[in-house]
């Protein structure tokens, strides 16, 4: 598949990026509908695999959009979906950040910041909680999570070792 597909992908994902208020998971179903059901560029099985692979790869979890683009139209497709979906959001973020930095003591800005801080921390803990619930199948998994939590708070060990130990525990069939 050639340039027209890449352009179509780019434009479509650009539109999606503006709809993705509240995070990319909100547009995931629409993305799947477009590439699987409307265009038959990939099967729903391939889409699910792309999603699963991206969850286990290092980096942010949104990288499935790269794999979807790659699956549909190779390197050009991967670049098209990634840039279209993430570029506008990052640009907007910097523009808002500039305003924020320029008026650090505006009372509205300060009030918003103060009000959002606890919510941000609550959401942060939510994603950790949801992650723990989705990966752990039984008490042994939760025990490993708890162990990692305690060790990272109480020891100066590099957390990469904890991750490596987790990999070994998994391979040994302990979780």
């Amino acid at each position, binding site marked *: 598949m050639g340039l027209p597909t890449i352009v179509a992908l780019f434009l479509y994902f650009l539109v999606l990026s503006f709809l993705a208020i509240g995070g990319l998971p909100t547009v995931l179903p629409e993305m799947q509908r477009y590439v699987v059901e409307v265009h038959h560029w990939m099967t729903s099985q391939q889409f699910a695999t792309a999603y699963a692979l991206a969850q286990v790869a290092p980096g942010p979890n949104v990288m499935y959009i790269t794999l979807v683009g790659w699956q549909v139209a190779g390197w050009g497709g991967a670049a098209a979906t990634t840039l279209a979906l993430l570029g506008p959001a990052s640009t907007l973020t910097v523009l808002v950040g500039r305003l924020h930095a320029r008026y650090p003591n505006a009372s509205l800005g300060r009030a918003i910041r103060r009000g959002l801080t*606890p919510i941000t921390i609550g959401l942060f803990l939510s994603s950790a909680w949801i992650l723990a619930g989705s990966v752990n199948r039984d008490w042994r*998994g939760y025990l*490993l999570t708890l162990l*990692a939590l305690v060790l990272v708070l109480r020891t100066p060990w590099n957390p990469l070792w904890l991750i490596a130990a987790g990999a070994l525990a998994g391979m040994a069939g302990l979780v």
Partner: protein
Amino acid sequence: MPQVELQGPNVGVRAIFLTFSRVTLSSFGSPLFWARRALVERQHWLTEREFVDLLALGQLLPGPNVLNLAALVGYRFAGWAGALAACAGFMGWPFLVVIAMGALHQRYGALPLVQQALTGMAAVAAGLLLASGIKMAAVLPRQWRHWLFGVLAFTGVGVLRWPLLLVVGALAPCAIVATWKDKD
């Protein structure tokens, strides 16, 4: 070009690129743990308070919150070039890695042993992320109102699994009004 607000330590474009490369390549589970560790604990580019502020802003805007955080941190220290370096470091490597994984998967399929290792890694990653959240909560003032909104956000999104937009849309205005007169 408008003047760049240089605050805190002097950080160059190269250091920004390398730091976010390291963060993203360490990120099994969630990059937030590694971003906080690098920016607050290791490099001391941001205080805990500044980290939470930038994360709050990143969460409010469309796009993945860690990528938004990268863009904000990069811009803060080195302008647009810094923002670009942060995003390139943060997204560039995973871009190559997922495609390599996609190609390998097409050729060999999934290996059960890899799957098992990943389960264990994810269980640890969840613990690391919980630890970061607990450390971040230390910036909250010792006033019940602040904690109340944190607990409500956690209950709504984490426990009840209500849509993020709904929970934040309902809580944010209340939290801003309720804490309007408070000191930081």
